[in-house]
């Protein structure tokens, strides 16, 4: 699988396609008339990096040629591994007899993802899955279309640690180890891929002067591009990956994974390079920590509220909304085939369809009593269908298919007997019969929120929070309390007094009450919005879909949480204004004698100062709900 021994390629023989990227050192283009590594089916697509003119005088052509020659000097296995885990320089490109750039493999398709834009309707854009996307709050990560669990993060790091260990063994120090130069995937299993390899240092030689990414520098004075330097930056990456922050440096971020990892990070950030542990130690500790890390992916597209208030004030719940009902606790007793499907679905977005679920009888809360459970025999034998070949990655398809073959199902095919809190099912039965099929915890499924053993009493779920259905299985002598995962979000389970938020056309979730989100005034079944009209402060409604054909859709009557009492103040109402500037507040004291302003006008527009003429005014909006904006005018008493 090693590429052919290095030979210089004439620039004039290249047919260049799209520009793929531009950086400080040069510009990368697709090459449309060449492939490398033809031993892989069809060969790998190629990219050309052209050094920018100011860089060329600094280029050490000998060092670059040594990089290109490296795979040929390694064992076949090492060479293949290097080309599989990095975009290692494959050939020097020359123009007018001088090196002007290099060829390398194009980023494999499994290290790309479909970027989810805010417009939503635009054409899907595939982007390299740079690790920089993961050093941000969960709401952002989910919002751009990524779904990565805590365990994925641990395993990604473990793979990177292993990769560094092996690179170091070959005499390669990465040097500028930063999220920009690292790509990741989570399927078929978490792994990483290194780019910008011509910047690496091979056996002391370096093709270009060593540069560092801001915020990713070694301690002052330390020699650049050494194995110990790589470990320092690896520790920064570990801390930041778990802190969801681009600049964090406190190893405490790793403490949720256990003290050994936080200690390892502390040692790796030691100013004295000799004190730092090896990547192999990291790989060992991370691998040990992986089984206990949560495999629950962050729910995709959970909207946080948008900017509100005066310009400059951060939006209301800038914090990520709850990670949603997706839950797959460690140690889950699910058939292996299911666990495997979940890992794949996270990234590929394809759900394994198995046709028949077990037939169990149940009841919606306090409806028909459950009478029997008769799991069909073959449910777990349904094979997972790998996704169709990805045209972007023909060379990967074969090996992916191989590795994606599901393992044999476990001996126990009874999903009800195996169910735990956090398991999910689809119900393909009718109102009075149940036909359960174990499934990923995705919208449209029912999640097990409680299990009662030693009983078949369906009413035992009555007091269980969020339980919509109870199902009894006499055979297993248990009752499962199920909660529906609505495509419209967990606001499906909101009750009076809760606060909820979402985009106008998107999922809505329950959140802590904050300025800019909505308070639930009332919850009704059905869709008659006139029921909301009589609620004081009612100004918005939201319908949340229930299970299909079950007539259990929900209507929420809502009230916007304005910053203070002036939001709902009426004409001539007295209020007490305190503070100044950004910290101004308005309180309805219930008495004009304890107030200092009187409302003299209001308009449902933001920033309508002119409307208030010479009076005082205050204005507010949540830009996502401009119809609920206000400008309120007042005069002093």
């Amino acid at each position, binding site marked *: 699988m090693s590429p052919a021994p290095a030979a210089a390629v004439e620039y004039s023989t290249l047919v260049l396609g799209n520009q793929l990227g531009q950086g400080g050192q040069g510009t990368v283009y697709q090459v449309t008339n060449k492939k490398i590594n033809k031993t892989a089916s069809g060969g790998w697509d190629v990219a050309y990096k052209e050094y920018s003119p100011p860089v060329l005088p600094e280029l050490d052509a000998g060092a670059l040629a040594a990089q290109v020659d490296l795979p040929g000097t390694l064992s076949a296995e090492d060479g293949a591994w290097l080309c599989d885990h990095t975009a290692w320089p494959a050939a020097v490109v020359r123009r007018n007899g001088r090196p002007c750039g290099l060829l390398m493999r194009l980023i494999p398709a499994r290290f790309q993802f479909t970027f989810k834009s805010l417009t939503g309707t635009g054409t899907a854009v595939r982007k390299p899955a740079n690790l920089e996307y993961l050093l941000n*709050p969960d709401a952002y990560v989910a919002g751009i279309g990524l779904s990565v669990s805590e365990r994925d993060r641990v395993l990604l790091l473990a793979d990177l640690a292993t990769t560094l260990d092996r690179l170091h063994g070959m005499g390669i120090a990465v040097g500028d180890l930063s999220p920009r130069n690292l790509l990741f995937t989570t399927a078929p299993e978490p792994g990483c891929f290194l780019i910008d390899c011509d910047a690496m240092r091979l056996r002391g030689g370096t093709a270009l002067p060593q540069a560092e990414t801001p915020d990713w520098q070694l301690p002052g004075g330390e020699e650049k591009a050494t194995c110990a330097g790589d470990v320092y930056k690896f520790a920064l990456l570990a801390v930041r990956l778990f802190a969801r922050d681009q600049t964090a440096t406190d190893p405490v971020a790793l403490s949720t994974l256990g003290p050994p990892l936080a200690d390892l990070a502390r040692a790796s950030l030691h100013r004295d390079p000799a004190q730092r542990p090896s990547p192999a130690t990291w790989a060992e500790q991370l691998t040990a920590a992986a089984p206990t890390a949560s495999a629950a992916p962050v729910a995709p597209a959970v909207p946080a509220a948008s900017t509100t208030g005066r310009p400059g004030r951060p939006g209301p719940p800038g914090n990520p909304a709850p990670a949603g009902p997706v839950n797959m606790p460690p140690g889950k007793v699910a058939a292996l085939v299911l666990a495997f499907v979940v890992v794949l679905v996270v990234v590929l977005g394809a759900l394994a369809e198995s046709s028949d679920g077990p037939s169990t009888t149940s009841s919606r809360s306090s409806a028909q009593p459950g009478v029997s459970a008769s799991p069909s025999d073959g449910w777990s034998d349904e094979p997972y269908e790998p996704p169709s070949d990805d045209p972007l990655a023909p060379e990967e398809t074969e090996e992916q298919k191989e590795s994606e073959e599901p393992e044999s199902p476990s001996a126990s095919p009874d999903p009800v007997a195996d169910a735990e809190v956090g398991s999910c099912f689809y119900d393909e039965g009718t109102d009075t019969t149940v036909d359960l099929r174990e499934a990923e915890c995705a919208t449209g499924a029912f999640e097990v929120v409680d299990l009662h053993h030693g009983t078949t009493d369906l009413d035992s779920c009555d007091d269980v929070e969020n339980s919509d259905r109870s199902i009894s299985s006499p055979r297993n002598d248990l009752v499962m309390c199920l909660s529906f995962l609505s495509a419209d979000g967990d606001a499906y389970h909101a009750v009076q007094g809760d606060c909820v938020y979402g985009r106008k056309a998107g999922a809505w979730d329950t959140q802590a009450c904050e300025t800019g989100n909505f308070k639930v005034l009332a919850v009704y079944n059905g869709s008659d919005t006139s029921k909301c009209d009589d609620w004081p402060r009612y100004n918005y409604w939201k319908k949340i879909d229930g299970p299909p054909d079950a007539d259990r859709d929900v209507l929420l009557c809502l009230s916007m949480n304005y910053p203070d009492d002036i939001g709902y103040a009426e004409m001539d109402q007295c209020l007490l204004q305190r503070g100044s500037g950004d910290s101004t507040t308005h309180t309805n004291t219930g008495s004009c004698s304890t107030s200092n302003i009187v409302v003299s006008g209001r308009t449902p527009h933001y920033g309508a100062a002119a409307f208030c003429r010479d009076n005082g005014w205050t204005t507010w909006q949540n830009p996502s709900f401009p119809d609920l904006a206000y400008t309120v005018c007042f005069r002093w008493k």
Partner: protein
Amino acid sequence: MAETKGVLLPAYVLADESGSMAPYEEDLSRGVISLCEGLRAEPMVAAKLCLAVLGFSDDVEVRLAVADMRHETSLPKIEIRGLTNYHAVFDDLLGRIPSDIQWLRGEGYKVHRPVVFFLSDGQPTDGGSWREPYGRLVDRARTPTAPNIVACGIGDAEARTMVEVATRPEFAFVAKPGTDIGQAIAEFFHALTASLVASGNALNSGSPQLVVNRPDQFSMAIDEVG
């Protein structure tokens, strides 16, 4: 808060929403969206910027409040209306920028000198009255947080005016004669995104600097006034 969270670059985009822009409303909208989406796809840059999009005509309307694009869940909307009142722009910035920066500092951030990207398709309709608030805005003695201003003119906007608005001659650009205005708007936002990405990358490095890319189809306005 005593702890310093990081150093931010506040960037204000002033988009001309006057009536003469009506034929190009969609271009303008698309430009603003591409800017916001472009930054959202660059989280290491977005984290170092505070972006505001302001629409101006008779007055200034906030289309996007100073924001980290990573936290935004909706996109700004442009609204064509009114005249081309430069006075309103600089008067607004005179109040807005110091107040935003005070707020950011209160939140524990350090702040680079703000940058304003000004795009107009016409000459000011308020005569010369804008020069007074403009003078105060860019005078670093009177306004310590005085911004750098990059001015791009399209359509009827004159090179001489852009040079007056820009805080340095090399920050003033006008679309080349005969350039399609819709295309020029797209290029403005393209260059703006690239400038912000390059500036964002340069922040926190040894030599933080404002990088201003000349939009394609534009020439430096000073060339025009000779």
